[in-house]
Structures are given as structure tokens and as C-alpha cells.
């Protein structure tokens, strides 16, 4: 009753709405968006962008799942996209069979764009068959030879040519030149022949420098197959001399007396150029300086190791020999004396430990053997006394 009263009280206070407003059909606000998505979908379709249109219809259905037009358009496009994706996949397979790998890949990518969950395409684009290729022989292409013929020669099967193409990074297997050197890999599980005669692959020796040279045979087919890396490749022609940089860095560290760091850096240089005279010279110097520093700190055995390493770089290093001898004798004397000090202070276990350090290096050093025995005997006696008490 109260509500009615209020409602009626409200009514006279408000003017009647103008007719034109009443006549406008009230549209649910979301329908505006559905219409907009449908319009955009059509626009995309007109432009031939079915993927874009498909998304718009799906958005229309998100706003109103019951919209018949959106539903029909979405279903229709889904069918079209899948069928088109299948066609591109088939074309891709054809290109692949012909050894046109660049073109094949483009077809697979188109198929995947049209149907993002196309299982076969996902597999073909992401799976990486890596054969266990232990050895290979280098085959020079003769007139009239194709990759499939080479596959026939070595595997007894024309259809194994993709293995050779992939191993050699060839994007178009039909684009082979006479005189071109091709690596034919021996593959586990596949018989490897040269005609009817088995190739003794164990004797095939390929150096890594040859392998690097063969990397040149990366070819591209048509314009669209090319990876647009022209600028990049230009820079790669002048490879960075990483070794020179490491060498300079090593010298720099040596000058700053950072000997250990310098040694690591020079090792990198020597890994690549074992004969690099600068790296050898500075490695020697760095080890020597480290040896001296350790010697001064009375860390004699570690210092000795450093001087021994120096001899690997320069066997005629007389200073190194002297330091090695000196390090060893100072080490022995130092621990011998420490042992005596402990012994005098009745710290027998510590004394034995010190003398044992000496004994490892030189069992006949002074009276070290006698002293260890003596200390052990005293220890035993003490133990016995303790027990009898």
C-alpha cells in the first residue's frame, strides 16, 4: 500500500515522456556490441582475412552466445579455415617431398595460422629428428647426379635424399651443382653402402676445419624462401676475433696484477690457439707472479705448484727450479719446527700432525720419523697411565 501510494505520488510530479522515445524499440545494450563484432567480421571476410573474421564472430558469441548469425558465421568459417589449412598442409608435404624445404615450411606456417591446433602441422614444425650421425664421407657431385642418386649410392634408397639435404643444410634439394661437395652421413640403423660395396666408414677421417668449410653450402631457393638476413650475413663475413679480445683482456688483467683471472682468460686463448706466443708468455708470467705471492705468504706447497706449472710453459726456467727447491725445503723446515714447538708445549697430537706433513714430502727429513715414533710412544704411555688410574 505504501509503495502504491508512493508510486502514485511520483507520477503526477513527472511529465509524460515524448512519443518519439516510446516508439524507439529498446535494445539490450549488449546487442550493440554483437552488431559491431558481426560488422567487423564481415569487413574482415571482405578483405579475405578469414582468421580475423573468425575471431570477430567468436567475440560476438562471447557477448551473446545465442546470436544465430554469429553462430552460423563462426561454424561456417571454422569449416573453411580447417579445409584451407589441410590444403596448405598437403601442398607443404608435396614441396617437402621435392626437397623444397623453404617453400614447404611456408605452407606449414600458413596451415598453422589458419588452424592453430592442427596436430600434424605442429608436429612437422616442432619435431626435430636428430640422427645419430657418427661419421660421414664427402661426396663430390658429378654431372647428372642429384641428391636422390647420391642417396641411392650410399643408402640404396632414392627416397632417403632428405637426410642428406638436411645434414647439409640445403633448403632446395633440387638445386645441386656439379662439383659441389656433399656430406653423406652414416646413420645408425640404416645400411651404408657405396654402390654394392660397403664403405669402411671407420677409416673416414673428416677434420673439423673441413666440416666448417662445408657449412658454406647453405642455399636458398626462390626469393620468398630466403631468410632476410642479408645485413647479418655481411657482418658474419668478418667474424669477431674473440680470441684477440680475450688475449688483450688477459694482458690487461696481468698489468692490474690480477694474475689468477689472467690465467683463466689466457687459457681460453690457448684452447683455441695452443701455440699463441703472447698467451703462453703471459700464462707463464702470471703463474710465476702468483707463485711469488704465495711464496711470500709462506704458502709454500701451493707456491711450488705454481712454479711447476711455470715449467710446463718454460722448461728452462732456472728461477722456477730454485723456487721449487726453496719452497719445498722451507715448507719442511717450517712444519718441522712447528712440530718441535708443539712437542715442547706437550701438544703431542698437533706435533705429530706437523711432522707427518713433513714426512709425506720427505720421510727422511732430519729426525722426523724418530720424533713421530717418540711422540706416539709417549702418547701410548699416557693412555696406559690414564687407564690404570
Amino acid at each position, binding site marked *: 500500500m*505504501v509503495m502504491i501510494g*508512493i*508510486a502514485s*505520488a*511520483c507520477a503526477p*510530479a*513527472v*511529465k509524460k*515522456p*515524448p512519443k*518519439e*522515445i516510446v516508439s524507439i524499440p*529498446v535494445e539490450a*545494450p549488449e546487442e550493440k*556490441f554483437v552488431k559491431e563484432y558481426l560488422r567487423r567480421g564481415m569487413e574482415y571476410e571482405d578483405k*579475405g*582475412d578469414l582468421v580475423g573474421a573468425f*575471431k570477430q564472430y*567468436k*567475440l560476438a*558469441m*562471447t*557477448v*551473446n552466445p545465442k546470436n544465430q548469425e554469429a553462430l552460423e558465421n563462426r561454424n561456417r568459417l571454422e569449416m573453411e579455415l580447417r579445409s584451407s589449412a589441410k590444403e596448405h598442409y598437403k601442398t607443404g608435404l608435396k614441396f617437402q617431398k621435392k626437397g623444397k624445404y623453404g617453400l614447404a*615450411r*611456408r605452407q606449414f*606456417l600458413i596451415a598453422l*595460422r589458419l588452424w*592453430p591446433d592442427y596436430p600434424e602441422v605442429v608436429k612437422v*614444425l*616442432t619435431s*626435430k629428428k*636428430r640422427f*645419430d*650421425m657418427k661419421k660421414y664421407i664427402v661426396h663430390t657431385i658429378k654431372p647428372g647426379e642429384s641428391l636422390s642418386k647420391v642417396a641411392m649410392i650410399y643408402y640404396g634408397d632414392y627416397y632417403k635424399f632428405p637426410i642428406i639435404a638436411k*645434414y647439409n643444410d640445403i633448403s632446395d634439394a633440387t638445386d645441386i651443382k656439379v662439383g659441389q661437395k656433399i656430406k653423406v*652421413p652414416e646413420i645408425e640403423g640404416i645400411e651404408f653402402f657405396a654402390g654394392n660395396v660397403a664403405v669402411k666408414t671407420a677409416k673416414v677421417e673428416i677434420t673439423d676445419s673441413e*666440416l*666448417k668449410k662445408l657449412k658454406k653450402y647453405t642455399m636458398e631457393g626462390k626469393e*620468398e624462401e630466403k*631468410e*632476410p638476413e642479408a*645485413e647479418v650475413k655481411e657482418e*658474419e663475413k668478418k667474424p*669477431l676475433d*674473440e*680470441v684477440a*679480445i*680475450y688475449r*688483450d*683482456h688477459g694482458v690487461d*688483467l696481468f698489468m692490474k696484477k690480477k694474475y*689468477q*683471472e689472467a690465467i*683463466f682468460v689466457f*687459457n*681460453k686463448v690457448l*684452447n*683455441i690457439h*695452443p701455440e699463441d706466443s703472447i698467451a703462453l708468455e703471459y700464462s707463464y708470467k702470471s703463474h710465476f707472479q702468483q707463485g711469488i705471492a704465495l711464496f711470500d705468504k709462506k704458502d709454500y706447497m701451493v707456491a711450488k705448484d705454481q712454479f711447476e706449472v711455470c715449467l710446463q710453459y718454460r722448461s728452462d726456467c732456472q728461477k722456477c727450479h730454485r723456487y721449487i727447491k726453496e719452497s719445498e725445503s722451507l715448507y719442511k723446515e717450517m712444519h718441522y719446527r712447528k712440530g718441535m714447538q708443539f712437542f715442547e708445549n706437550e701438544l703431542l697430537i698437533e706435533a705429530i700432525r706437523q711432522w707427518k706433513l713433513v714426512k709425506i714430502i720427505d720421510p727422511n727429513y732430519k729426525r722426523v720419523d724418530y720424533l713421530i715414533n717418540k711422540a706416539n710412544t709417549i702418547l701410548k704411555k699416557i693412555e696406559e697411565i690414564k687407564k690404570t688410574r
Partner: protein
Amino acid sequence: MGMASKRLYRDKLELIIFFVIGAGLLFQSSCATLDVALKEPETVVSEEKPLKPMVFKSEEYVVCSLEGGETSVALAERYLGDAEKSWVIEDANEGISFEKDQMIIIPLKEENKGGLTADGYQVVSVLCYHRFAENCKSPLCTPTLIFDQQMRYLKDNHYRVISLNELLDFLNYRHAIPKRSVLITIDDGYRSCYDIAYPILKKYGFTATMFIYTNFAGVARGAITWDQLREMKADGFEVGSHTLSHCDLTKKKEGEDDQTYIARIKKELLVSKQIIDKKLNQNTIYIAYPYSSCNQRVMNICNQVGYKIALTVKRGGNPFFTERLTLKRDQILKRDIETFITRIKTFQELSLE
């Protein structure tokens, strides 16, 4: 009047008062709406304007209007359950400002895991650094200010630094990554990686992957320590192998036969992995080849040992369908920002129509 009937009477009274107040409010609001509608008949369209924010949801999308003040981070947290996924919303609404009443789309399913468009495909640039110092001349050393400038450029231009883990998902076509994804790697394991690069990267909210060679890192003076690596790892940084001794894996040593050479390479790859695994309590699946040197044999051993991603320093971006054991990287050697900008590639043009 008994106590019970008194309480009943009070309850009834309360109910009536409640109705009166409620009806009053209803009356007020309905009157107000009508009043607006009548006063300005030409603004009937205002009816179309949503009074409340609208949210529509399907299996694949959320379409919603903004209330105002929401950020992509807040929306990602609300609709995707992960604030870190804000890039999904930003990428799906490129060029749209997040203002009140603006309709935005939130994809609930990853719709383009390969980053494919009609004009080409997504690629990921992997940047490669070595050392850092306040001032230095070597191309393999990046001065602090230059590194800061480069990272600031990435931040200001909305690049997103992803991890190798995320890159692996992209390469496996398992998950999408942000459109403007780049990756930062630092080789060798110099101490300056912790002292200089780490604070700068943290400042911009970036992470990096460090490739260390275990004869140096954690061992030598001037090298990063295991504790520092652990600290960085806790901040989302990753650690990969750079072998044991930073040797050229494709090179046989003098007098080395085939068997000894292979055994040595296996040791370089496997033992370095085992050391990092143990020290950092992880499964190391990333390696950077020293000197970028690799061949089929080295790749096969990497595969056997358990590496899932291996990186060279061959220049270029990486699409999802690339060979995972020869990923490309760009060494940042020059210091001018122009050259740096040319190194960052997130898209490769190729007609896919």
C-alpha cells in the same frame, strides 16, 4: 499485552519502517531516471551507455567494459588468475587506452602460440653479454652506463624480457610469449655480472640467464660465487652451462684420438652440468657453446647429456620452429644505442596468406 505479543508488535513495526525506507529509495531512483530521460529526450542514446560495467564471458574470451582505473595487471589477476600475464591483455588490446567504459578483450585461451600473422612470424632476440665495468675498452666488456641505457631502452619501448624456460615452451609450441619478447644472457660467469648487471636488471624488473664455465665460476677470484648465483636464481635468474673449461668443443687436441676426444667432450658437457645441478639444486638443460663452436657430433652429445636448448652467437632472431640446439644470439659488442636497436628483432616478415 504479554511480552511475546509486545515483541511481535515491535518486529512488525520494524518491518514496516524498512519497507517505507526501501520504497522511498526506489521511488527516488526511479524518479531520477525518468527525470533524466524526460528532460533530455535527445540523449536517448545514453540508455545505450552501460550504467554498470558489462562483462561477457565465453570459453575463449572475456569481453568487458572498464569501470575506470583498472590496470592490465589487475585484470590479469582477476580474469587469468596471474598478474604476470598482464602482457596477454596488453597484446590483445594493442593501441587501446585503458579508460572508463572502454571495451576490452581478454583471451582465456592461448590463441597464437607461434606468433603467426598474415605478414610473418614472431622471433625472439637473445642478447649476449660477457663482462661489465665502470669503464672498459674490450668489445666483450659493457660499461655500466651503456648497459643501463640499453636496458632502459628495452623498458621504455615495452620489450618484455623472458626466461629460457619460457622460450623453451614457445619452441615446443606449448605456450605463447609476449609479442615483444627478448632474452638476456651473460656468458662466462664474471663477478661483474653480479656486481654491475644484476642491480641494473633488477631496477628494470628484468632477469637474465648466466652461462658459466665451472672451472672458473665459483672458483677463481674475479668470478661469480655460487652464493651469488643462488641469490640471483632466487630472483628468477637462470643458470646454464658454458662447459667445464671454456674449450672449443669441435676441436681435437694434438695427438687426441677419436675416442679420447669424444670422452673429453662428454666430460665437458656432462660434468659441468652435474656440478651446476648439484650446487644450485636444479636440472641444467641450457648450454652456450664456447666460441659458438658446435657441429653435429657435439649437438648429439648435448642431446644425450640432457640439454634441451643450446646457443651459438650466430646473429638473428629465433622463431618457434627453429633448431633448439643451435639457437641464435646477438653479441652486444658495439656501444651506440642505434646498433643496439638494430639487434632487437621480434618479427620476421614473410607472407603467410
